[in-house]
Each structure stands twice: as C-alpha cells, then as structure tokens.
C-alpha cells in the first residue's frame, strides 16, 4: 500500500464529515480510500498549466431575482417530518453535554 492516507487521517476526515467508524470499518475503509486516491493521482499526468477550472456548465450566468418572502403556509407539514417537535418547534437534545460540563 502506497500509504497516501493513513488511519489517523481517515479518522480526521470522518470528524470533518460528522461521521464515525468502528475499528473494523476503519480497517476496511483506509486501504480502499487509499486505492481510490491513488486513482485520483493519475490526474497529475494531465498538463493543466494555464488551464482554467470549470465549476459550472450551465449556460445561465448570474441570474438575479428580487428577494421576496413567500409564505408557503406549510409549517405543520414541515414539522411532521421532524424527528421530534412540540408547540411549533423542532426539539433537539441539549447542545452542551451537561454530564461533561460537570466533570
């Protein structure tokens, strides 16, 4: 294995992506990602000196519109999709872990 990415880096990237993996998953993922990143590196064979990036292939450029508020009147339906809701609000657990705060 060329070691383009190691286990610690995979864990770091997982943290950025708000994902977590078990040890067994890390064992499987690390060499897989390493191989795929190896495939990415074939791009170094392409001479891109002086070439612009392409980020968008739409034929529309800088389309402007008025910023007008629109009341869809669907808050109840929207809240129906929330995992937990009460009195017109989405419920979430405490942002700060109180048990850690006290420790």
């Amino acid at each position, binding site marked *: 294995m060329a070691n383009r990415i190691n286990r610690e880096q995979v864990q770091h990237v997982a943290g950025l992506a708000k994902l977590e993996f078990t040890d067994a998953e890390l064992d499987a993922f690390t060499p897989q990602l390493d191989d*795929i990143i190896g495939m990415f590196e074939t791009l170094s064979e392409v001479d891109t000196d002086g070439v612009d990036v392409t*980020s968008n292939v739409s034929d529309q450029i800088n389309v402007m519109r008025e910023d007008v508020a629109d009341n869809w009147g669907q808050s109840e339906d929207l809240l129906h999709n929330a995992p937990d809701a009460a009195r017109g609000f989405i419920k979430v657990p405490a942002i700060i872990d109180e048990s850690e705060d006290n420790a």
Partner: protein
Amino acid sequence: MNYFDKDLASLHADLVAKKLSAKELTQATFDNIKATDPQIDAFLNLNEDAALDQAAKIDAQGINADQPLAGIPMGLKDNIVTKGLTTTAASKILANFKPVYDATVAEKLADAQMINVGKTNLDEFAMGGSTENSAFKTTKNAWDQTKVPGGSSGGSAAAVASGQVPVTLGSDTGGSIRQPAAFNGIVGMKPTYGRVSRWGLIAFGSSLDQIGPMTRGVKDNATVLSAIAGHDNHDLTSSTQAVPNFAADLNDATSVKGMRIGLPKEFLAEGVNEDVKAAILAAADTYRKLGATVDEVSLPHNKYGVAAYYIIASSEASSNLQRFDGIRYGYRADDVKNLEDVYVKSRSEGFGEEVKRRIMLGTFSLSAGFYDAYFIKAAKVRTVIINDFKAVLKDHDFIMGPVAPTTAFGIGDEIKDPITMYMNDVLTIPVNLAGLPGLSLPAGFSNNLPVGMQLIGRPFDESTLYKAGYAFEQNTDFHLQVPTLGGQN
C-alpha cells in the same frame, strides 16, 4: 396491458377514441407491476389510490387529441420529491420522509395529466451503478434476474424494460440513466445540463445532475423530454433556451443522410467487451448505409474522466449531504448525549457504506492541504475534457460509442470492489463533466443481454440525437425484442 406492443402514440389514440379509459390503463399498470415486481423489485412505493382517483378524474374530463400524455401512467425515480408521497432516495436516513412540495418535473408531468403510479428503486442517493446500494432492496435486470439492472436508475430502467409501465424518469450524474437503459435494452436520455429543472431532485452532484426520460422507444422518449424541459425560476441553472417539440421531427428514417459522426477510438479501446465493440461497429455500418459518414476521432483525455468525476461529484455530494443531520427531517439516532452526537450518530447509522465512502472522498478532496492537489486539479482536467469534446463536435454532428464497456454483470460480482464498479462509467462520465446530452439506445445483444449504444451531441442539440436514434431504430429490430418474464409476454 401489454406495453411491449404499444407506444405512447397508440395508447393516446386509444384513450382519445375511448377504446380504453385512463382508469383501465392505470389499473392494468398496477396489475403489471403486481405480476412482475416480485421478480424485478423495481418499485419502492406505489401510489395506487391517488393514481386511480386521478385517472377517474381525467376520464370524466375526457382526453383531447392535443394532450399526448394525458391518462398515461409513469413512474418516478425515488430521488424526485413528490408532495405527500414518501420519497426516500433509497436511504434509511429518509425512510419516512414526506415531501411538502412536488419536484418541477413531477408538476410538469401532472400538468400534462400523466399518472404517477409510484416511486422506483435506486442506489442510495443515486450513488452507484447497480442498484445494489439501495437500503431497501436490489432491483433485478429485466432480461436475467441474476444480473444487476445497472444504476443508479435501475428501478426506473427495469420497470420499463419488464413492461410494467411505459415511461419513467431517472436522474444521471455520471451515467445513471444511460447505463441502466443499456443494461435493460431501453432508451434513456441524459439531457444537456440545464435543459431540465433540478428543483426537487434530491441533490447529489449539483454541477452534473440532470433528470431525463426512460422509455421503450426513441419517439416516446422525445415526447416526454419536451414535457419536462424548460426554464424554471426555482432552478437558476435551468436554461432559458426554447424547448423544441422533439417528437414532431421524428418521421424520417433516413434523416442521418449527410451527417458526420465521430467514433472515438478510446471508446473501443481495451476493457471494452468484444461483443459490445462488434455491436457498435455494426451500428456504424448501419449509419454509413443510411448515408452518414463515420470518422475515427479521438478524445485523448477520456480516461481521466473517472478520476476527475469521483473528486468533483464526491466533493459536491459531501457538501449537499451535510443537510442530513437528524434535526429537521429524516432519521435521528437514539441514545445521544448532545447535539454533536445527533449529527454524528444519525449520519453514521443513517447513511449506507457507498454514501459514506463518497462523503469521505469529497471531504478529503476539499480539506485543507488537499484542495489544490485534488479538487482544483480535477476542475482543470474537466476543462481539458470539455475541450476534447468541443474539438470533435466542431465538425461532427454527434459522437457515437458504447454506453458501457460490458453488458449487465452479476448481482454481487462487483459490489465489494469500488474501483472496478467506478470504471463501468468510463464512457458516460465525461458527458456529464462536459454537460452534453447523451442518448442510450438498444444496439445489439451479447449472451441474451442487451448492448447499449450512446449518442453524444452538442449542447442543447438533443434533437439531432433523437433523429439519429430514431433512424437507427427504424432500420434495426433490437428495440422490438422483449424479455420473457412470468405472467408477461
């Protein structure tokens, strides 16, 4: 209803003449689905009561001759949101999600009075080429149930190919309409980027995604594209270009006469199966007999498309999929101590393996220290690939080649090997990177499995692809062959 013998025009004529009611047609479609879906597993969710109600209303109003799609049943890939009808993207994280609005394409087909019979299976969030990445079930190829239907629009392709329904919509980010269409022997169009509104398509790679029709024949496909295309204020990348009546031009089976066609040598290179190669060379001869010129051309950077794509599409996906955080909708993990836990555990438990792999690849490619070497490099290679196409299409009306290097592979054969799976899209991905239209249509058989041909055109020139596809179809009989399934045929 036997959809193998009927195209949209003949169904429409029967509906107008009242030889058939929309309700009978819709009921017959559900009968088809119930007879064959235990073998095919194309649908995730049926819309039976609402569809039959809608059909009855259409019958009460009557169908006019100027409503070519009225009363005709269709299915939607389940990453296209439908108001009040569960839409999952084949992910556990959206298992119970009920959208509060309709995608623009769903609205347009409803305006055309098509009847939505249900939602078709896909690889989770459209990430995959076999439909094996669905969190719910694996769809089977209509021709051989031990083979994959392709993906990610595998449910939409198999539903049409097995005669369940005459029309479905798919989405195509790197080949997800064209490859399953090829594997199932049907017609699939990936329109020019911006031709069809993406509003209500659950986003994967926003600079690559397009919705398009999947049908048994070229003319049917053209009819549906005209109905879903056009500018939409909800998607400001959608084009303001006028939408032609694509089907109206399809009446001349020799319309390719005088056209110049490019056949890239890279499309027949190593890795492309001999039978696939033979089918494409035979198709080139068909076009020559019809009066077209077929030249060998080169797309020298085609082989870098897969690497550039997996950086760009994964980067866009890692950003788009941040919204799935267990707060406003979708799956939320139990046993959480704080908000960070909600994010991490909901995402880790809710997403499947391939989706996590793409999020990881994208997050890596965009992360500090790697952004220039990976993401920026890929975005430059994208420009190089676009320039290759421009050079060929400057003096060729369109490009022809295979859709995929092989026919449908076995279920379970490639799912453990991501790079092998990714390479299946080597001939379709560059078309998305360049934003060009690509049409997939039946061009032969290998060991009783369909071979697909791909026609690639200039931006917003779907019309030439349909004409060339129609001419090919009128001079061959591949599209007339149908799979044998229990209860059908």
